[in-house]
């Protein structure tokens, strides 16, 4: 058994038994960690693998959430039909944005700003759409709560935890496969030197587009989850630039381009946030804003001193390949 496999096995066992040993609060935090681990992983496909910086991933979360949420709200159609629709819609939007950007040579910072522009454009658009409830929000009916109803994805918090766990594990497996596939090698070639990859005959345009579509589609699944977990959707909340940044934070702190980075980063940041809140409360120093300042300083420290994220040096110390 390799060290990687051992680590994975331990993590897997802990994750699976977690709802039995943890209280509801810890479970809600763990669900949040998995949510950011998953979305970070999805974002990483685009940035970490193919080198395309997206600062507007909240767009795909929102599209997924509103596609599945809207179907349920208006037509009573559960998430299982909504899911493929959400994935398809987000992947299509991602591909269109990618097509426009890559076709017209929008790259680097400009590409990043383009993704923000699309997310903001969509946010304000949704604020003016009657079908989604506009800024008044869309409240999904929450009829069944006591027992598990898989058809409508309703049930106790543990159900949502396991759903998110399955998604995170699935994303990890998918990303591992992708990295070892032809696409993975091409992506990394593009990431390191796009011109060189082009010269070697890699169809850069097509592979970048594929990365965007996959990343967008994966992110949309998180959106579907979000819709049925929170049961209320507001464009202001879901498409907000701040949400896009939250998605990115974990990956960057954990290690862009690595497989475990997004998971580690999400865990570190979410626990840090909770711990700082608790610590400040214990010290009786609950000045609003203090928590975010401490959080920001830690963030700053990590970016300054660990440019590649936490995972690469940690992996080296554990003797694990990245």
């Amino acid at each position: 058994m390799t060290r990687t496999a051992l680590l994975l096995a331990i993590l897997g066992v802990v994750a699976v038994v977690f709802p039995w040993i943890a209280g509801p609060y810890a479970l809600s935090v763990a669900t949040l960690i998995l949510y950011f681990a998953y979305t970070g992983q999805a974002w990483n496909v685009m940035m970490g693998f193919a080198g395309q910086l997206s600062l507007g991933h909240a767009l795909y979360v929102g599209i997924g959430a509103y596609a599945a949420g809207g179907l349920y709200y208006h037509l009573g159609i559960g998430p299982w039909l909504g899911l493929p629709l959400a994935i398809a819609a987000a992947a299509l939007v991602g591909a269109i944005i990618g097509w426009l950007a890559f076709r017209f040579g929008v790259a680097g910072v400009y590409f990043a700003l383009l993704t923000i522009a699309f997310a903001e454009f969509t946010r304000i658009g949704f604020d003016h759409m009657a079908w989604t409830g506009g800024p008044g929000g869309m409240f999904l009916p929450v009829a069944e709560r006591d027992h598990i109803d898989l058809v409508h994805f309703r049930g106790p918090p543990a159900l949502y935890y396991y759903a998110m766990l399955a998604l995170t594990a699935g994303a990890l497996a998918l990303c591992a496969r992708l990295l070892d596939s032809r696409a993975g090698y091409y992506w990394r070639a593009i990431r390191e030197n796009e011109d060189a990859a082009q010269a070697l005959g890699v169809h850069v345009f097509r592979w970048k587009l594929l990365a965007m579509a996959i990343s967008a589609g994966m992110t949309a699944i998180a959106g579907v989850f979000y819709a049925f977990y929170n049961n209320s959707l507001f464009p202001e909340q879901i498409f907000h630039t701040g949400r896009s940044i939250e998605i990115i934070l974990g990956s960057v702190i954990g290690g862009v381009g690595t497989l475990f980075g997004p998971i580690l980063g999400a865990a570190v940041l979410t626990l840090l946030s909770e711990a700082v809140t608790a610590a400040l409360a214990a010290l009786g120093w609950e000045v609003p804003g203090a928590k975010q300042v401490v959080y920001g300083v830690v963030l700053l420290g990590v970016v300054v001193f660990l440019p590649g994220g936490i995972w690469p040096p940690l992996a080296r110390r554990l003797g694990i390949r990245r």
Partner: protein
Amino acid sequence: MASSQGITRRSFQTALAAGLASSLLPLRRARAQAHKLKVGVILPRSGTQGLTGQSCQKGADLAPGVIKELLGVELELMNADFESNVDTARTRAERLIQDGAHVLVGPFDSGAAAAIAQVAEQRGVPLIINIAAAPQITEQGYKFVFRNFQTAGEIVKNGLDLIGELFSATHAAPTTAVYMHVNDTFGQAMTKGILATLPSRSQLGFKIVDEIAYDPAAKDLSVEISRAKATKADFLLLVSRLNDAILLRREMVKQRWNPMGIVSPGSPGMYEEQYFKSLGKLSDYSISNVPWFNPNANLTKIVEKAFARQNPNDKLVFHGLNVGFTFEAILVAADAFKRAKTTDPKALADAIRQTHITDKMTLGGPIKFNAKGQVEGIGSACVQNLNQLPTVVLPAAAATARPVFPQPGYKKT
């Protein structure tokens, strides 16, 4: 900041470690028959809603002292800041319950209320909503969610009725209004209500000549005011937040638009402290028809005293709505605790359902929850800014001054 002294790096690290450990370990605490009710107060004290969150907090902070005198019940507040973020609202609610909160009070925001309501329901811990107007929250069949606040529809109905009373009390008969509203969750719900209710209120005698929706984040409202002025409407019907209300008022002066008045059928903004601070004299005569406290009520006087003790440089009227409803939410919890004689959340919820509080601070009938957990018949007041103070001018029973409409300086455009 005095309180920062004494926090060394080491003590902070220790606390951080302790915090982390307590985050991970499921510390289930026994819920015994305590003599003290632990109230988890969850409000947005930072982030975009920080201002209102901190205003509501003032109402919570004075509650234990007042209620101890009033009911002889011991309360312990557990404060949580959800940072104006729905995800955080959820985990903070879970955390409060884990740390032993017997009842939750908050959160001022409809999105957060929807998220916290689910936690409360799952954990079987009562949530008493202080402020949040989205009607859907009490339409989900929840058994542990209670709201002592008007829904958007009720706010509009009461607000429009008060406009009618205002016109007849002042013998004014404006025929046209321009309707401006902020395009956010609250503004949208209010607009829906207004457009649905107004046609059935023909006795009001005015019609809306233009509807102008503006961005809640707008920093410049000059175009919006140009457009409103161009309609030559008799008065401005406004659903605002705070900062935009200030911007609008200033812009009206700059563009020399002096309609008969600015009347809000039920939104925040014009009665809030900042409005007076930023505008000085210009704040006068603006009218807000909002859920409000009764300045003549016995309980109000008690709360006012406690408020002055805790905030010597501040006045209750500037936080009237926020403090009133946050305080009453905690009062509901304390009253239920007194009757249930236990902190068991289920018994508390049952007791809350039996609530019948007549000695209250806000206007309207007694606090009594219907089957959905909603209090009906909460009253609104016509609050006009006079001498740079929000002043109740209608209904006559609670009024401390007479309404002024049209406002002085009114020029027909």
